[in-house]
């Protein structure tokens, strides 16, 4: 079959893409088979479309529902919350029941944010095509899968046909070589990339992350890195599967087992791109030059090392950029040229599909242990599984003794749909992925950073270089392993 755009050595992306082509059109559109379809409360528009056509779900065995976007994090009792929010959750229950779909509901011991739950349960596997009506679906690419977010019309299309029309995107390779310094994490790597190429820098591209610093990341770190692909405009982001990927997946509840696993593993490892496969674009970063990063503006590209100052639009030659910076600083209430460490915060949020896995909580706890937060804050683990693990390790006590709230799993303050909001005008140090105007609530101001940086900001009450606070505590980062 010649579905490949061009013959010759193929990338990881091309190999997976080619394996999923059901049929190809002359104009380059390919009908791709979808291996995993993940749904959440926002999927009701798509179910409405199904109803209008009186259609059913073609592959219920490949379709999974997850309650995460709207779930309350301080109670699990739907009778005790805003009826409109409870309605969103019940609607998903009704729709998944009607179509016979496996639902990970509030009371499920595996419940969690879709992009945390999928990998954790072994639903996410290398070589798969994975879609979800959520732009951070790229997260799953950490396993060497083609994973991307889709809109409601496409969700309906996948429900009915288990396929999607896609054009082969361009391929971009982002290589990070060398070693990250102490206190520098995957989040800092991702924000550095976005600051460098821009929030639309990877538009129209499938990103493959490579290089020694990427290979050295844990699976959790790779998930964080791939999660932020969309913030660089990428269609998806991926890391080639390796022994670390296999080690993570063995014995996961929904992953293949026994000889099936070994057979699958051979297939997965063979997906690696050929050494001389060509990319449309390549970007290279030196890991040693990456510092802990924070954002100061209203786009993830508005990011800088914590040691820097806010930019001054009057000194910029690019007029469009200067206009954006002016707007951003005005919204954020920051002076041009203000040192970033002078920016006082009102609260912290540690959570979201970007940074709510066990490693993230360990990093925050390593900074917080034995210290008090000066501002209120919320720590929401990515899943019930992460929550149990953290409690076994005693991390929850570190958070609560520091004065932060330890709550249940969900999207929570990342998007505020469940009512966990940052009040108007308040400034939040947040481990999430979007610092858009009003993202965490109307008038809210968000600074993105790693969990360790958010923990440090909680302790000092302002944006802070956490490296001095980490000294002597590095062992806390790997506790429990």
């Amino acid at each position: 079959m010649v579905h490949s755009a061009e013959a010759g050595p193929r990338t990881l992306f091309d190999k997976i893409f080619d394996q999923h082509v059901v049929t190809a059109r002359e104009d380059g559109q390919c009908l791709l088979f979808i291996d995993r379809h993940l749904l959440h409360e926002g999927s009701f528009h798509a179910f409405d479309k199904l109803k209008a056509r009186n259609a059913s779900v073609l592959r219920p065995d490949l379709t999974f529902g997850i309650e995460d976007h709207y779930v309350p994090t301080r109670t699990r009792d739907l009778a005790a919350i805003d009826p409109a929010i409870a309605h969103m959750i019940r609607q998903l229950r009704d729709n998944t029941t009607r179509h016979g779909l496996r639902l990970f509901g509030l009371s499920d011991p595996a419940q969690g944010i879709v992009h945390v739950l999928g990998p954790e349960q072994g639903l996410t596997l290398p070589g798969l095509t994975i879609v979800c009506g959520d732009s951070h679906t790229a997260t799953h690419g950490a396993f060497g899968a083609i994973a991307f977010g889709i809109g409601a019309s496409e969700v309906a299309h996948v429900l009915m046909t288990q396929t999607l029309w896609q054009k082969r995107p361009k391929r971009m390779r982002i290589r990070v070589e060398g070693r990250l310094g102490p206190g520098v994490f995957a989040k800092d790597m991702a924000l550095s990339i976005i600051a460098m190429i821009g929030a639309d820098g990877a538009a129209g591209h499938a990103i493959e992350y490579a290089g020694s610093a990427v290979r050295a990341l844990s699976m959790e770190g790779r998930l964080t890195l791939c999660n932020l692909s969309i913030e660089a405009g990428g269609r998806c982001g991926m890391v080639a599967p390796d022994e670390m990927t296999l080690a993570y997946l063995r014995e996961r509840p929904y992953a293949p087992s026994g000889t099936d696993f070994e057979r699958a593993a051979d297939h997965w490892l063979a997906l690696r791109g050929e050494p001389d496969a060509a990319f449309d674009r390549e970007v290279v970063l030196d890991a040693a030059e990456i510092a802990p990063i924070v954002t100061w503006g209203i786009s993830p590209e508005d990011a800088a090392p914590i040691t820097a100052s806010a930019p001054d639009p009057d000194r910029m030659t690019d007029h469009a950029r200067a206009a954006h910076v002016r707007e951003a600083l005005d919204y954020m209430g920051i002076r041009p040229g203000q040192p970033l460490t002078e920016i006082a915060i009102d609260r912290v949020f540690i959570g979201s599909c970007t940074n709510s896995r066990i490693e993230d909580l360990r990093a925050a706890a390593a900074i917080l242990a034995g210290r008090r937060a000066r501002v209120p804050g919320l720590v929401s683990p990515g899943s019930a599984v992460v929550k149990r693990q953290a409690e076994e390790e005693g991390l929850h006590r570190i958070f609560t003794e520091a004065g932060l709230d330890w709550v249940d799993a969900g999207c929570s303050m990342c998007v505020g749909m469940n009512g966990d909001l940052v009040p108007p005008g308040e400034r939040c140090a947040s481990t999430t992925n979007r610092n858009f105007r009003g993202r965490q609530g109307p008038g809210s101001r968000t600074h993105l950073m790693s969990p360790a940086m958010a923990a440090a900001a909680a302790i000092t009450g302002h944006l802070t270089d956490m490296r001095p606070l980490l000294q002597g505590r590095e062992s806390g980062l790997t506790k429990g392993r």
Partner: protein
Amino acid sequence: MDVFKVLDALACPLPLSGIDTDQLIPARFMKRSRADGYGNFLLYDLRFDENGQRHPDCPLNAPRWQGAKILVTRRNFGSGSSREAAVYALADYGFTCVIAPSFGDIFASNAVNNGLLPATVSEEDAEALLAALESSDGSARVDLETCEIRAANLVIPFRIDPVWRTKLLNGWDDIDLTLSHSAAIEAFQVNDAKTRPWLVPKSRPA
């Protein structure tokens, strides 16, 4: 879906970059059914203050831009979340075309699925168009056959993926097209079950 060929309409300039989907429709309005219409929530926090009063300096509130069907804006429009509600809000408000130097990928594909044209122009042309609309009667013509925009004395080419162009020109809906390939989808699944027997998760813990 409606057919899109030529559009003659008022074109409202919105000289901002990076208007993400969280701004196009804030998350708090997304609990509603589409049947209620999403137009009132479009760019809500740009159009209204915390007391629900209209911001006088937001172009969408200006009397001269009422009834606009075309929106002209700066780069990276529709970045962010995959919420199709962002397109519903634009469409229900009355827009059928957005002109910008770049778009979020998912937004653009959602737009096309709802008959809304995302027309990509160069940064210079976007700036020229923004200025021309302010100093003219604000009307514009978007021709999808020729991929040209005319406004005041400007003639500006725009780009759109050819596949999307064909879809918009014909008002095609993907689902019917795909269903005509049902046999191929079936054959793929039969073959795939042999080559990737591990695909379907077996374990179904309670």
